[in-house]
């Protein structure tokens, strides 16, 4: 018996010394969510994605206007409107709303992005009907109480000061200014201490009246709710919602004229514990036919752990905890950014790697051995995002925001797979090489010299002289 055991033990390690990974089995097809929809008589579009494995529902009411609609000088208005939206209605105080929602175990939040403002709910399905009444109440009957506004404004200004003390946040804000100048997309979505100070209650009321109307809104529900029940619920809480008679105001062009000035800007922050480096430029619109090419190109360049930027900066050189890039396709041309953080001494080195990798993508075809896994990574991310109720709501509402067919969900995988190396190279030639702005926020004394050797014109702005409210980025000097 013992000898038999010993023989078995001896035999096993031979199997274990399998030196190559076992091959995969045949894949199983993923089931994609099947949205169903209807439009209420008042124009509200309702989309439902039933998914019954857990007693949980995510819901979002989205209106198709966000920070891109902020008036000049009142940047941060959409964001502040969203924040105060849940803090008082015609019949309920902020405390009553928060306590009522949370007694149901639900979370309710409102947020503004560039092109939309959303009210989001996550709730166990047994409490869905009660919780949806709060969603409808804040969307329809928000009163924007003065004291709530004042508190949120003061805290917003404090929070901005805290976040703008971080090199990477400040670098992103400066990069937007460089890319879009004084067009709406050039501003900070949360505004600035200066712009928040100017916003009045009436601005919030007007923003709400202009954009919160049923024919400018979409309601998305995903999770443990049947389509019929969801439609009935939508009718019961939103059926009598009537928009104001006045038309919607016309907006500024959020992307601006699209000039292509190239600047290298250093914001000198001598105390910075780490430098933030961003390369920024204009990207694409969400409805651009090349959208999937952009997504695939970026997956090679800077999305995910094994993308080129992270390979070169982190994995090969140990210069950062992470490096990456992204397109942010919006209703109008949104930004592209490539970014990383590094010790101050290596800021110039990583700046040239970022620019160099963007250019390299346009000079040679991505080998299939690299392109195929990057596409697989994108498809995997897509599939994983559809595993949660909030992930489904995100995907579906993004399509609805840009009036894209919901059936695009079923075409995403094949669409990604069909992008060719040649398309990626050509796309990168048009969209990633050439004019870009570079922003470095950090201790300039540690990287200015090597940076000047790489780039002919480097502007240095001491952090005390930086004015993020101005397209020139500099505090205007008073003439004596």
């Amino acid at each position, binding site marked *: 018996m013992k000898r038999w055991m010993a023989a078995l033990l001896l035999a096993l390690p031979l199997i274990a010394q399998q030196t190559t990974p076992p091959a995969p089995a045949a894949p199983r097809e993923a089931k994609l969510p099947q949205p169903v929809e209807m439009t209420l008589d008042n124009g509200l579009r309702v989309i439902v994605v039933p998914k019954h494995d857990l007693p949980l529902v995510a819901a979002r009411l989205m209106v198709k206007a966000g920070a891109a609609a902020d008036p000049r000088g009142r940047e941060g208005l959409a964001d502040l409107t969203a924040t105060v939206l849940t803090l008082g209605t015609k019949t309920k105080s902020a405390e009553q709303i928060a306590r009522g929602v949370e007694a149901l175990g639900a979370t309710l939040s409102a947020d503004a992005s560039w092109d939309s403002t959303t009210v989001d709910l996550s709730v166990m399905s047994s409490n869905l009907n009660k919780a949806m009444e709060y969603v409808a109440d804040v969307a329809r009957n928000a009163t924007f109480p003065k004291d709530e506004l004042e508190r949120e404004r003061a805290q917003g200004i404090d929070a901005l000061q805290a976040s703008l*003390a971080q090199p990477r946040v400040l670098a992103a804000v400066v990069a937007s200014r460089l890319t879009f100048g004084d067009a709406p997309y050039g501003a900070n979505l949360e505004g600035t201490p200066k712009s928040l100070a100017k916003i009045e209650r009436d601005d919030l009321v007007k923003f709400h009246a202009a954009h919160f109307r049923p024919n400018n809104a979409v309601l998305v529900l995903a999770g443990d709710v049947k389509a019929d029940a969801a439609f009935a619920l939508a009718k019961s809480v939103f059926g009598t919602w009537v928009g104001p008679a006045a038309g919607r105001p016309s907006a500024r062009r959020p992307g601006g004229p699209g000039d292509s000035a190239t600047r290298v800007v250093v914001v000198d922050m001598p105390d910075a514990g780490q430098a933030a480096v961003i390369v920024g430029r204009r990207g694409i619109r969400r409805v651009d036919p090349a959208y999937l090419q952009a997504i695939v190109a970026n997956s090679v360049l800077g999305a995910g752990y094994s993308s080129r930027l992270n390979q070169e900066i982190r994995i090969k050189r140990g210069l950062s905890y992470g490096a990456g890039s992204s397109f942010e396709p919006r209703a109008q041309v949104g930004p592209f950014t490539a970014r990383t953080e590094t010790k101050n001494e290596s800021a110039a080195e990583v700046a040239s790697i970022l620019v160099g990798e963007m250019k390299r993508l346009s000079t040679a075809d991505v080998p299939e051995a690299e392109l195929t896994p990057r596409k697989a990574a994108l498809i995997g991310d897509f599939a994983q995002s559809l595993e949660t109720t909030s992930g489904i709501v995100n995907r579906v509402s993004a399509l609805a925001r840009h009036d894209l067919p919901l059936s695009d969900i079923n075409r995403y995988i094949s669409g990604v797979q069909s992008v060719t190396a040649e398309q990626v190279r050509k796309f990168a030639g048009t969209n990633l090489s050439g004019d870009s702005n570079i922003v470095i926020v950090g201790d300039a004394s540690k990287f200015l010299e090597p940076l000047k050797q790489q780039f002919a014109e480097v502007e240095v702005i001491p952090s005390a002289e930086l004015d993020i409210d101005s397209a020139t980025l500099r505090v205007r000097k008073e003439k004596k």
Partner: protein
Amino acid sequence: MRFARIALLSLLVAATASAATTIPPIPFKQRVLPNGLQVYSAQDRTTPTVAIHVWYRVGSKDDPEGRSGFAHLFEHMLFKSTKNMPSEMMDRLTEDVGGFNNATTFDDATAYYEVVPSNYLETLLWAEADRMASLNVDDANFKSERDVVKEEFRFRVLAPPYGRLFYALEKSSFVKHPYRRPGIGSIEELDASTLDDVRKFHSTFYRPDNATLIVVGDFEQQQLDAWVDKYFTPIAKPSSEIPRVSIEEPARAEEKRITEYAPNVPLPAVAMSWLIPSASHADAIPLFVAATILSEGESSRLQEKLVRGEVAVEAFGDADVREDLGLFGMVAILSSEHQPAEAEKLMRAELASIAEKAVTPAELEKAKNLIVTSALRERETSNGKAFSIGEALSKQHDANVVNNGLAKVQAVTPADVQRVVKKYLIDGKALVLTYLDESAKGGAK
């Protein structure tokens, strides 16, 4: 963690909350291989993906002396080469096929995990077994990855305005127990570590009898068991003892106040901590409920009194329970024109109010509902379920917590919350940390 958070003052839901009477249980199966490897598996065939976790019972508290941050640095090294895998091969086997991988170093454990399309399950079992059995890192790899970890330190601790606050709170809250060493380490001690330390750490702690394999998602049970036998059974169990931390943290004899200065602090902050019992102690659950009442949601006490009260921009509390003992923490970042002492007073007043008048039944019910919903969200993915099993095992040594923990939460009464708040937070001794911009140093304002 290779990418995101490291648990400094974890704001995550503690494992004690990860189950509910109203939510489907996680139907896990458990077995032990002859070499001591614990195996947990739970089938869920909703989507064709599978989560594979290996949790090693070694965490930041096991950092060698003078090598603070080592367990975390080591975690990064396990993505480098092994006998049969070149560096970053884990990324080839996961990211390249539409999955992902990551790892997290906790105080008590280190978790390595992958989510992949389920047809790659066997491949990943092979890979996890391979890096358990052998590590084959060279000096160039080691030094470059150590630089990455130093950048992670700058990213988490030096660059954010409140990074040094959590670092100092962790360091100052314990006097003897190794929990006092922040998991991210320090530049000096990271620099002092060597490739030899890496090899020694692997042979000491990375062994089957110190590990748990957790597989959740799309698989056939028999097939999984056969693969686990094939790839993990041959890994030898060393005869050496596994060293365990046995240092006991003494009770605090008195309150302690410290001030920490840092550059670029836009608004002052105040943080308080108290010692609380271990995760497996019965009082951990009412303490977790107390933290939820204080801190979870817009209608939580700290939110209503401090943030809506316009004294703080942010205020939160947390019962960070661990294997050996825990920390109850409260932090407030002040609104401009307000002083840390005001926030401290208000936070203490909330504790006093719970200790004197107890919480209302409605408030308690709300906290329970929030805990249930949050547990539901955690269980939407196979990865979330695997995490809840791993956390329960590392902190409470009992996976059943994922299926019976919520019943214990449901059973908590106002009197329970009152009692633990009085015992640990009113009668316990606080550490009070005031966090100011360095310009405030030396009395100058």
